[in-house]
């Protein structure tokens, strides 16, 4: 287990924003993002519950990845923003981990799985300092945690898609963050990888961490997550699965996409039947 003890929540909330709890890992306020003049996200208000697994769900183009990138400062926002434990992101960067979409990098890059995972430790090292043995060992432990210890020295292009996804996950784990953002980690992965990711998510929750996951598979939302955010340009509904993940909210999120909706309500009634 490479996760350290959960550090105490910071004690100083932002005085000017008393409505945002210092306990909440992330508070998003009035976030609006536009590409060119076309707004993608409108006025998002959200408070992430602590120690929970949150799924962001919504149709294609709903702004799910955009939301992650905006709060992480990877793309410019038109208005609003996010605070983490009541502080600006710049103060708590190292406590925030990120698993980008697998397609976002060149997998033919001359680097091994272990070296990619070691990048998770770079933030702790700081400028110009070389990687030490201690950090390599931590990276190795993270690889082991996702069941990839045997592939440490493989060049990353020689891994399958699912294995590459697990390497990305291990890199985030190696960072030992308190809040994680994962962009479609389950997209196009094999069953073994899916199981490994779910395992890691649960371990993180047990250790008091919060994970926000962009998720596309509606049939697994209830099994994998505690909270859900239904997004389509704006937040349609957000809250605990039991209260929020229902046919009415899904209809409002996915609109007239009937075939998909049919599949969803079928999945929901199946689940209800099982219970």
């Amino acid at each position, binding site marked *: 287990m490479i996760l350290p003890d959960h550090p105490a929540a910071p004690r100083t909330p932002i005085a000017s924003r008393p409505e945002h709890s210092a306990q909440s890992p992330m508070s998003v306020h009035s976030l609006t993002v536009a590409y060119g003049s076309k707004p993608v996200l409108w006025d998002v208000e959200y408070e992430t519950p602590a120690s929970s697994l949150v799924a962001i769900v919504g149709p294609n183009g709903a702004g799910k990845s955009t939301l992650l990138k905006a709060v*992480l400062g990877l793309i410019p926002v038109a208005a609003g923003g996010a605070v983490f434990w009541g502080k600006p992101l710049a103060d708590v960067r190292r406590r925030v981990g990120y698993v*980008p979409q697998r397609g*976002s990098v060149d997998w033919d890059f001359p680097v091994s799985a272990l*070296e990619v995972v070691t990048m998770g430790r770079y933030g702790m090292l700081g400028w110009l300092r070389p990687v030490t043995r201690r950090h390599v060992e931590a990276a190795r432990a993270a690889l082991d945690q996702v069941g990839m210890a045997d592939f440490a020295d493989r060049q990353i292009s020689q891994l399958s898609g699912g294995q590459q996804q697990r390497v990305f996950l291990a890199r985030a784990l190696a960072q030992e963050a308190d809040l994680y953002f994962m962009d479609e980690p389950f997209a196009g992965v*094999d069953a073994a990888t899916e199981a490994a990711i779910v395992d890691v998510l649960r371990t993180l929750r047990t250790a008091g961490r919060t994970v926000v996951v962009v998720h596309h598979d509606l049939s697994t939302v209830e099994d994998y997550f505690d909270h859900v955010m239904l997004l389509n340009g704006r937040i349609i509904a957000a809250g605990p699965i039991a209260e929020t993940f229902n046919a009415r909210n899904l209809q409002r999120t996915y609109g007239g996409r009937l075939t998909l909706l049919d599949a969803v309500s079928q999945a929901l009634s199946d689940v209800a039947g099982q219970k």
Partner: protein
Amino acid sequence: MMLAALDSMDWPGLARVATVLALGGGYNTSLVMIGVAVLGFASGIVGTFAVLRKRAMMSDTLSHATLPGIGLAFLAAVALGVEGRSLPVLLAGAGLAGIAGVGAVHVMSRHTRLPEDAAMGAVLSVFFGLGFVLLSYIQTLGTGAEGGIAKFIYGQTAAMSEADAIVIAIVASLVVASVVLLFKEFRLLCFDPDFATAQGWPVGRIDLALMGLVVIVTVIGLQAVGLILVIAMIVIPAAAARFWTEKLARMTIVAGLFGAGSGYVGAALSALMPRFPAGGVIVLVAGAVFLFSLVFAPRRGVLSGFVRHALLSLDIETQHVLRRAYEAGEAARAPGSVAEAVRAVEIDSLSITRSWSPPRRAVVLLSLAARGFVSRRGGEVRLTSDGLDEARRVTRNHRLWEAFLISHADLTPSHVHRSADLVEHVLDPDLVSRLEDELRRGGKLPLTNEPMASAHPC
């Protein structure tokens, strides 16, 4: 005519080439060779990251954009009454213009919808055009300096003084030291800039540091290689090095060595053949290294890829033959066992072998015979007992995969080479035995003489 022209040239003898390469070509020549080698080392190392950051074209834009800077620096120096041909003045102008060019591309691609490559094309040509106009204007001034400026376009190592070589060596060493210090940051930047940003690294500034090093290498390389071809010293050694290794640290060192070697040999050749522009000669040497790497590199090279593909294709074909022979035996329903029927099948009569061209057929049959799977008896090719075992194994494996794909298509592990990977190596034993049951019920499981467990190596 061409040949006659080549004949009339004064080609250096081999002995002379060897002498110069062993630093016996005189003090100045040796100094230049070492200077250019150090330059090549630095540009190979910086180039590794420029290439991995996909900044090769940006570097080319940068080097072409230096030309107007050289012209303007000359004019400014003359206007101020300073010696216009002074190297530091001209190089400072070159560096500033290069930075301006890169800045222009950056502003255009960031604030307009213009694609970056179009912005680079526009900046490269406009800056270069401006440079040519300025050079023509300087020629009309009749200061006699135009020759001194033209050397920056094509490169002229012979014009390099001892002081120049020393400055190049010192600056290049500093560049190498910077890369060593920033190795971790550059690796992160080149592999995953978004992750770097999320982790709090100032990606823009690291990028700037990398481009800054490219600017420095370009500027100190202008004199040796010339601004048209200096890009080659940055891109080619790195591109060649990529063929030889999957490790970034190793790639960086190999690129540095390729750059140094090309610079060293190229400078020697250009000293021996002063009628050719140094830039061209040095780049041709680097190009030869690249071509060799492209063709002969053990894993990523064209030749090895070709051989690997041919072997894979041969492997698949032989497996096809074995399976078809097995199936033909099964279908024959001859009196006696399936095994006898399979061994009675004439390989030459199978439709699969008849559809091949004669050379292809010869190669596949030769490969089967070489492994002892077939032998020629009475003018006809039939399976040996080893061949029968192998045919059973191949057929069983193929059918298990097929059964698996039909019933469990959603679980397909990626990167499985179905004919080569034994089902047991990829799927778990429970699943394999379930699949076997399915096949057995349909009477489609090839029977083997040995128990199934022995086919399981782990």
